[in-house]
């Protein structure tokens, strides 16, 4: 197992996933409010 590759891919998709999660949560809150 090459930990440099695992660290790169895991961090990338974790960060992109977190961005989508928090953005969708913000969008849902706003859309239910309006």
């Amino acid at each position: 197992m090459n930990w440099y590759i695992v660290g790169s891919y895991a961090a990338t998709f974790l960060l992109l996933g977190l961005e989508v999660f928090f953005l969708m949560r913000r969008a849902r809150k706003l859309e239910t409010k309006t």
Partner: protein
Amino acid sequence: MNTAVRWFWFASPHTFFPLAGTIARVCAWLAVPLALAGLYVGLVVAPTDAQQGEVYRIIFIHVPAAWMSMFIYLVMAFWAALGLAFNTRLSGMMAQALAPTGALFTFIALWTGSLWGKPTWGTYWVWDARLTSELILLFLYFGFMALHASIDDVRRADRAAAVLAIVGAVNVPIIYYSVQWWNTLHQGASVSFTKAPSMAATMFLGMILMAFAFWLYSIAVAMVRVRCLILERQ
């Protein structure tokens, strides 16, 4: 409706709101299969590199992320300039919506580059021209977001942050040409518009697929964020 009228029609946040939702959905659904295809080609199909072994596979996220970090900044500066020139509300929102995603891709480019640097160069970080200018790009994104957040009046915040975005755009060609202008540890450009790619065709394909996936992801996320900004500013 002629083309000019349609541009102005969609320049209004109210009319752009449903269009942004459609664009976000289409781009998100296209980004997923492209990313899966890119990962498959990059991690399974592409051959092992003769010099670097398996660790070169970081290229399939590092290079597309670095491209996106620079490209998003230029698009952000474009919208910022449009907002300053025409005083359109949507332009400021577009610039504001792009900044966090641009900062994220800049961080990813730095992080993956660091993890690639250790096994190949023997160090996680070196203050060379390419790395330092990319780090400055991250600070420019942070500066843009911090400046925007520090001013309560959003229209004034749009204008102030727009000036920073436009001035900071000078850093993008510096990043791109840094490997030519200075002696750096970083390798030269992976892909050139004027020369055929020097890497294996499957390596190139994997990189391009991931670049398109990141590009569509960025559009989708920016569109969802601009919808949030439209609702928040109402």
